[in-house]
């Protein structure tokens, strides 16, 4: 136990036990999903009759899965790019300037995540339909990207703001003193200091987009991303083994970027402070690092 723990011993042990139980609750289903990918039978009953990789081969040969994977990657990259640009711009704006409605910006950015997904999905669906009537927009990869970008922005924003708060302004002043202009300062001083935050934000945004199904159902039309492929194929009894494989791949594929992002933002408190849906950065860092004058 940590030396700073001041709770009575019984409480410490009790909390520890509960923690282990909660962790088990969280991780056993994930572990089972990966296990089921190696299920040789079509039936889903437990216990599994053995382990086999035959369905991995079948999945790789499945043209639809490959197409869906490519679509997901494309959507992820597109949404991440937009989120990186918009998110960091917004972060700079909020960090460097005091202006009317400053707090509202944060609230506005988190709204797509705070409102139920079906509301966001339906809203975007209505707009696309209207756009279709007015200027001929169709449901396509671009509508998927726009939908994803809308809630990926806040992820990048949080990460960059958190990092900016930790960046000492004296570095920037020194840069100006040494004769650099605004662009040079940005390129040689500011950018390197937020690079890992950008990377973390980008990775998180990608993971978020890659997994997304709730809003994507409303914005994709006939385009099929990987989660949508799973959603469609859950209704076909014979596709179950392939779905298992795709599900476990999706799981692993989204965990890797998140793990890397966590390591990148380790010193800043990691993803707890700049992760999905939390704006702890604002409060935490505001307390520790007073805002620039």
């Amino acid at each position, binding site marked *: 136990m940590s030396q700073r723990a001041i709770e009575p011993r019984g409480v410490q042990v009790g909390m520890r036990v509960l923690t282990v139980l909660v962790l088990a609750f969280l991780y056993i289903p994930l572990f089972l999903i990966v296990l089921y990918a190696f299920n040789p039978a*079509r039936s*889903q009953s437990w216990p599994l009759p053995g382990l086999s990789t035959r369905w991995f081969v079948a999945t790789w040969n499945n043209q639809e899965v490959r197409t869906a994977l490519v679509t997901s990657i494309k959507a992820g990259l597109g949404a991440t790019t937009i989120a990186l640009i918009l998110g960091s711009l917004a972060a700079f704006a909020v960090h460097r300037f005091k202006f009317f409605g400053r707090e509202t910006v944060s609230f506005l950015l988190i709204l797509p995540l705070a409102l139920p997904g079906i509301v966001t999905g339906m809203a975007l669906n209505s707009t696309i339909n209207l756009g279709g009537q007015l200027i001929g927009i169709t449901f396509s990869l671009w509508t998927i990207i726009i939908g994803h970008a809308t809630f990926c922005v806040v992820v990048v924003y949080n990460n960059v703001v958190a990092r900016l708060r930790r960046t000492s302004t004296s570095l920037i002043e020194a840069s100006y003193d040494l004769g650099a202009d605004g662009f040079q300062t940005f390129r040689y001083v500011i950018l390197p200091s937020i690079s890992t935050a950008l990377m973390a934000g980008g990775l998180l945004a990608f993971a978020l987009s890659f997994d997304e199904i709730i809003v994507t159902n409303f914005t994709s039309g*006939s385009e099929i991303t990987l989660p949508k492929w799973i959603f469609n194929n859950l*209704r*076909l*009894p*014979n*596709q179950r083994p392939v779905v298992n494989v795709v599900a476990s791949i999706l799981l692993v594929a989204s965990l890797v970027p998140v793990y890397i992002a966590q390591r990148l933002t380790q010193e800043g408190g990691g993803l707890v402070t700049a992760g999905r849906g939390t704006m702890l950065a604002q409060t935490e860092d505001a307390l520790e690092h007073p805002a620039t004058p």
Partner: protein
Amino acid sequence: MKRYHVNAIAAVGALVVLASCGSTANNAQSGSNLPQTIGKGEGALNLVAWTGYVESGKTDPKVDWVTPFQTQTGCTINVKFADTSDEMVTLMRQGGGTQWDGVSASGDATNRLIAHGDVAEVNVNLIPDFKDVIQSLQSPRHNTINGHHYGVPYMYGPNVLMYNTNVVKPAPTSWAPTWDANSPYKGKVAAYDSPIFIADAALYLKTHNKSLGISDVYELTSNQLDAAITLLKQQAPLIKKYWAATTDETDPFSSGDMVIGTAWPYQVSFLKSENKPVAALVPSEGATGWADTWMMSSHAQHPNCMYLWMKWTETAAVQDQVAEFYGATPSNAKACDLLKQHIGASADTDYHCGDNGFLKNIALWKTPLQQCGDSRGNTCTDYTVWQQRWQEVRGTK
């Protein structure tokens, strides 16, 4: 679980107009506008179909009537599987009718699609195997208006009573175990999730509550509808899950969570192929069912490919394949000969292939209208009302 009040009002309204005027539908091509030859395929075909109707070897490499079609015609098929007729109607209207070229519509969707001009008239002279279709499906009311054909018949079949042979003993002969409030299988019964399932309740009442005087289960007066809804609400606690996607039935049957209930032959075939202990029958009260028609969108982007597909799926060879896989009965009488060759006597006992009498005894899905079509005049309940009442049933569980 699909309730859609407002939009169905017109669907049904238009149907009434159609029925009373008996005229041809609106956008559809008619008479001399019909194509006289099938042109070159456009290279692609977008279909909406019931699960199991468009197999391309993904389920079982040996079950494939899509790849040969694609190879021969160059039309690459993109299929979307729908779970209910309501969903099919909505899909066919997407993108102004341009998103999907064809649909395997059941009788409760066909008239709605025809009435709104969503589907085009078809020149059956271009379909050589059409002449082999059994008599009662050549010009049925659900896809032929005044001699104008709006599609070609595909497969038909009843909604059977499927049960777990290990659990349900003795073997059931009636629908009673699925409706009776004291059913021993309470909490493990299956039911179909669509307003059209009300007809199944009416079918049960037709035999067990003769005082209601139900004759056609789709032509229900308010009184009869109320009785059916009451029965359905009474059934709700018995139901494990209302299924629409076939896996919502095959999964629980596989795991033992469901043991008895209404099913399509597809689920029965699938579970049997997985060596699960199931059997199915048409109980003494009879059954509702469906006769499906391949229809082409009146705004189809790939009409030639669609005609080629209709031609392909009308052949005896293809229909025989579908029958053996899906469990439904082919409309092409010559397919029955092939079926009998392949599976022997069960072509008659299980499929009732070519049996016009059997077909007449199935209460085929059709859209409920206000017009009762008999001496009761316009006092029947239409589909909009059915949708609203179904929502009630589903909301109470």
